[in-house]
């Protein structure tokens, strides 16, 4: 009998690369498609961020603080808000000021550095922590890694950086018979609480909601609450992309109305609560430790890293990129470091995924390239230019 919901929304926009040709290598070191980035950001701001923030703010106020949510906003997205749509930052700030919104910490560049370089991982986590403090005046205490990537050892490093609460996927192959609706603890560090995504109920909202062929369509707040009530456990972790609302799922589907109704319906029940991740960790004791020797994520059926590091193209690009870590560590050049960060965004590797040859609508939806091969060529051209710059900087030194 779960009597509470933990809502967490992921906010991220990749820094898309421009068409970067071989002829540009060594000549032009601007890598980004500013036009696409601005256009997409402004569109998503109008369709999703601004109306949804407004809706959440209204709901929080109407509930007198009983309704709570959490956000994780990547540094790449923050940079784009700052540059193209500062009004979005203002509306997040308003949400932050209610005290009902928790901001989670993640890697600044929405990167996979946690599986590549502990030093780079730590650097980006610190950088993100500072950014959240800078923009919203709060210090994050709970952590979510890019794409909910988690393993025992990643969790341990996150703990050592000061985060006692971490979010990850309630992956079926990890959970087995166990329910994701409890708090678990890290297998290496007993003191770290793990909050798991209930992928079934999360995806009911994030993916199945607009699907008219779905047996449960149309999904109403009342129906959804009965599912939560029936679920075994302490809380239900509903973790999803924030862009679900209005961008991935069009407003005409009624998704905004659903999100407006859900808290009202739930809070009619006096025993029902909305908790932020830190509150969940404080309210419920871990029921057992969870052993995750190999990294898991929230992506695809496999719930592993193969969407980003599953073929030779991705592995090659990834190893060439992180092969620069040592050289960069002796360079104190903010411009180089910024490009290094943007090139680490997990999206670039996602575009090179070949899994969508056999389905995978999500991959197609997010991909600005016609094929993973194009994505690879373009990325490697950019990276080649970047490598030249790094080597030049080393030579000067």
């Amino acid at each position, binding site marked *: 009998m779960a009597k509470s919901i933990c809502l967490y929304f992921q906010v991220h926009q990749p820094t898309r690369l421009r068409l970067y040709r071989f002829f540009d290598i060594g000549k032009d070191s601007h890598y980004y498609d500013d036009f696409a980035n601005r256009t997409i950001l402004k569109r998503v701001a109008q369709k999703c961020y601004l109306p949804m923030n407004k809706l959440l703010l209204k709901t929080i106020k109407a509930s007198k603080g009983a309704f709570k949510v959490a956000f994780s906003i990547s540094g790449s997205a923050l940079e784009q808000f700052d540059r193209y749509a500062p009004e979005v930052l203002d509306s997040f700030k308003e949400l932050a000021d209610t005290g009902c919104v928790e901001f989670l910490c993640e890697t600044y560049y929405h990167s996979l550095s946690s599986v590549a370089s502990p030093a780079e991982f730590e650097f980006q986590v610190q950088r993100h922590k500072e950014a959240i403090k800078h923009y919203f005046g709060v210090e994050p205490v709970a952590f979510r890694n890019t794409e909910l990537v988690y393993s025992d050892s990643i969790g341990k490093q996150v703990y050592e950086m000061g985060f006692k609460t971490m979010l990850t996927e309630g992956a079926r192959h990890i959970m087995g018979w166990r329910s994701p609706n409890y708090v678990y603890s890290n297998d290496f560090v007993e003191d770290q609480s793990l909050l798991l995504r209930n992928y079934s109920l999360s995806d009911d909202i994030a993916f199945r909601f607009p699907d008219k062929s779905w047996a449960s369509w149309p999904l109403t707040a009342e129906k959804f609450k009965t599912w939560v009530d029936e679920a075994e456990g302490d809380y239900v972790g509903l973790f999803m992309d924030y862009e679900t609302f209005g961008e991935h799922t069009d407003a005409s589907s009624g998704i905004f109305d659903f999100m407006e109704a859900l808290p009202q319906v739930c809070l009619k029940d006096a025993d029902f609560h909305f908790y932020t991740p830190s509150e969940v960790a404080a309210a419920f004791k871990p029921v057992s430790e969870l052993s995750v020797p190999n990294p898991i994520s929230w992506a695809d059926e496999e719930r592993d890293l193969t969407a980003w590091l599953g073929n030779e193209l991705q592995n090659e690009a990834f190893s060439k990129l992180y092969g620069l870590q040592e050289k960069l560590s002796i360079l104190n050049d903010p411009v180089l470091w910024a490009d290094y960060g943007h090139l680490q965004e997990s999206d670039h590797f996602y575009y090179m995924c070949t899994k969508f040859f056999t389905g995978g609508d999500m991959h197609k939806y997010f991909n600005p390239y016609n094929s993973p091969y194009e994505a690879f060529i373009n990325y490697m051209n950019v990276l080649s230019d970047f*490598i030249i710059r790094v080597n030049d900087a080393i030579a000067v030194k």
Partner: protein
Amino acid sequence: MFGWEFPPHIAGGLGTACKGIVEGLAHNGVETLFVMPSASGDEDQSCTTIINASDVEVHNVSQTVDEFLDKVKFIHVDSNLVPYVDPDEYFEAIEKMKKEKRTSTTVGFGQKFKFSGKYGANLMEEVSRYAQVGGTIAMQHAGEFDVIHAHDWLTYLAGIAAKELSGKPLVVHVHATSFDRGSDDMVDTRVYAIEKRGMEMADRVVAVSELTRNIVINKYGIDPSKVVAVHNAVDFSGRENLQVERGVRDKVVTFLGRITYQKGPEYFIDAAAKVLKRTKGVRFVMAGSGDMMNKAIRQVARLGIADRFHFTGFLRGSDVQKMFALSDVYIMPSVSEPFGISPLEAMRSNVPSIISYQSGAAEILKYAFKVDFWDVDAMADDIYALLQYPALSKFAEKHGLEEVNALKWDHAAAKLKNIYEQITK
């Protein structure tokens, strides 16, 4: 003379070669009527008279042609055989064909047929219609010509029709064969049949190299005494080499062409990996696209050399010249190449070239480096040497330039004129 395309609107090398040939013939005092399926009107007619097959009505001779066509038995098939098309168009054509779900078309008479003159999905239909028009033109212009000359299989049926109806001798010119388009066990039998028929009906078969001549003799069973090799030339008049500022300081080794089985892209990649083991100051570029491109990209990634091995995709217009201008070594590791004009262009741009023995160009280029396409060690050695020893690359540049500048279509045309004279006696 029956061709399929003529500059400025060309998809492959065939049109360029045809222009060189008619110009060379003009300089040798031979007049030509050049028939093509779809002329645009902006072709250079200073050396030939262009006849646009799309303007020709087949009405008045339909009966005669009809009789003839019965014998030839045209089949229309939805064909994806595309000899010189650029890969993007190829995929488009296939997609389009899938959508249209074309059924077989009968060849009709009494009207003009608008040819696309391209290498599209209904190529076979165009080829057979072109034969009808070819016969008609031969009758209309009877008395104006002495020899019929047909370029590549697309025009062979037109050549045969013209020969049947006019009684004039036929020369078929083999720029490429089915064996250069697919591997031995992947030959399009419909095209092969047309090629073989054209060669058999011809009084002389001209091949663009000894290599192609041998294919004509061995794989098509043609009498060696009527097969003659006339090597291609190249016309660089009026072309200045581009000056391009380099972005990368490393040396650049370039492969430029369709990324298909016949061009041997995988050998280039293997050689590149070997060179990169020994030296870092070099980058490799594979310019072009094709059905093996994705495989090539995976091979590069697997070998872990993607930071030094770049793909440009299909290059258009001046980007080709730009690519040559950025190159230090050009490589053409073709598995099967009837001639191969690209190393000549490279050498003209002062880029030393490494070419495979399995290319027609290898027969005439003394100052190109030659290796077997499969011998990636030798390829790597040559690349390394050209990069490391400036004396060698300077030597190859200087003599290579002189060599390609000495190749003239006039010489090739003189040989053709000689052939014409033999068969009109």
